[in-house]
């Protein structure tokens, strides 16, 4: 058993002429909650795609729970709970059937009802997902991610489309999973939520990890005030980086 849930070494992902992820090295320990921050298009989802083997690195290696997602993808994903970004549920399938499908495929015997209770969806358990609002779909996907007590939760933009209650639910669940010693890796561009739940934060910009550390460490690095919000920090880091790149071009 590896001590690290996620280990990326020099991972680069190129699409035709664009570099989505650029020489990314990153480690998430097996009991850590890691917030993966960055503006839209920074390469967060691409990175997560490589963890799940939706996509494969052009260069570098990725190890998830000690295994290579490219060769042992199914085994790796058996131990992962995954909430993808820009996914779609099956419109005609009920919430219960969605969960039953995941439960059966993972070969565990969780109770769909209990899982939906955790995300607050029990009242629509037999309704087809096609009738759900964006927030309800997001809750459903979160319940699916929780099937089989995963060792690692990968949540890609989990707050998308959620109302304040939903945001609170996600945060509570992340908190509960943390206490269960699940590693959590989640990406977000909604900054306020990240500081509330994360042990460590990495800031991705233009495919590069431009800063990494605890909130305090990040603050210290830019000589920010003690009460500098994560938003200030984020802007400071990405702004510098933007300036650096534009100057570099000139």
């Amino acid at each position, binding site marked *: 058993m590896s001590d690290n849930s996620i280990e990326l070494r020099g991972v680069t992902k190129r699409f035709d002429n664009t570099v989505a992820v650029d020489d990314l090295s990153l480690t998430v320990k097996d009991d850590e909650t890691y917030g993966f921050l960055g503006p839209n298009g920074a390469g967060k989802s691409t990175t997560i795609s490589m963890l799940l*083997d939706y*996509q*494969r690195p052009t260069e570098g290696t990725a190890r998830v729970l000690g295994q290579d997602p490219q060769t042992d*993808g199914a085994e790796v*994903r058996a131990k992962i709970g995954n909430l993808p970004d820009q*996914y*779609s549920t*099956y419109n005609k399938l009920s919430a219960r059937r969605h969960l039953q499908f995941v439960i059966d495929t993972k070969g565990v015997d969780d109770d769909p009802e209990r899982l939906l209770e955790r995300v607050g969806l029990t009242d629509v358990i037999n309704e087809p997902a096609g009738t759900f609002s964006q927030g309800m779909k997001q809750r459903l996907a979160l319940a699916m991610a929780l099937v089989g007590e995963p060792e690692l939760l990968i949540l890609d933009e989990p707050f998308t489309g959620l109302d304040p209650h939903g945001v609170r639910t996600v945060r509570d669940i992340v908190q509960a999973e943390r206490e269960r010693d699940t590693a959590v890796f989640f990406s977000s561009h909604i900054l306020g939520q990240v500081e509330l739940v994360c042990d460590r934060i990495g800031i991705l910009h233009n495919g590069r990890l431009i800063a990494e550390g605890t909130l305090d460490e990040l603050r210290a690095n830019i000589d920010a005030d003690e009460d500098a919000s994560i938003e200030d920090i984020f802007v400071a880091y990405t702004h510098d980086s933007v300036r650096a790149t534009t100057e570099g071009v000139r």
Partner: protein
Amino acid sequence: MRWFPLARKEFRGIVRYKGTWLFTLLLVYFGYQPSYVGYQGVGSDITIAYIQNFATLLLPLGVLLLSYRSIIKERRSGSLKIPLGLPLTRTDVLLGKIAGRTVGLGASVLVACLALGGYGLVRYGLFSPLRFVAVVLTTLLYVLVLVSIATAISAVTRRAITATVGVFAGLYLPLFAFWRSIVHWVNGMVTGAGANTATGGGVQTFAPGESYFLLLRLAPGNAYTVLTNWTLGVGNAARGYIGVIQQTQFASGMGGSTIVETALQDPPVYLHEAIGLLVLALWAVVPIGLAWLRFTRGDVL
């Protein structure tokens, strides 16, 4: 069998889709073609031949239509991220899709076969149960072949429009609708022999060679027709059973025969009807095999 739940989900989706059962009705409607010539040729087994009627053009069109979007649609919408994020390999995803769809569409085709069988039983009396079972099984194998080909196209295309154009212009039209004309044309180009063309010296009889026969039955639909004609016992030919009966019974002076036994003195082994099974097997395996190579390498989304 990690893919079993996925197959079951696919299956449920298909049998709950109204279009699937509308398809069954259309199959029955197109299959039921009473024919004096047909009845003279095969007697009460004409009931079995009704299955071949619907399997010629409508079955491939329907199965392809109901299957070619299975992966590309989910890839575009993003729901493919669900199975691919689970403990399933990419191979599992292809297998689950094909298995679930084949059983689902197979069920709809089976119902059509049974409906025609039931009607025929009352109308024409008892047919050969063995032949009926053989033709039904061949038809279900044909469904598997079609689902497999459609899934292959769905797995390798990145845009829905490419899949649509590919499945019609690249597959259905040449291979199912116009294969005979294409083979005819190619044969004419190569051998210089047109089909019953009027020449200066009168009408030139169309006398195709072995390669013509082979080429004709390499298309999956024709391989199916050869197999079912074999079961019906009408003759070794890659055309609908009524046409074959017409040629054997009312052998017209016009044109050469499309039946192997009458056209060729000493037919080669590869023109044996059983080879049709091999042809179908290849169609079931080769396209999806090539798609598998592509689908399991590189990025899937």
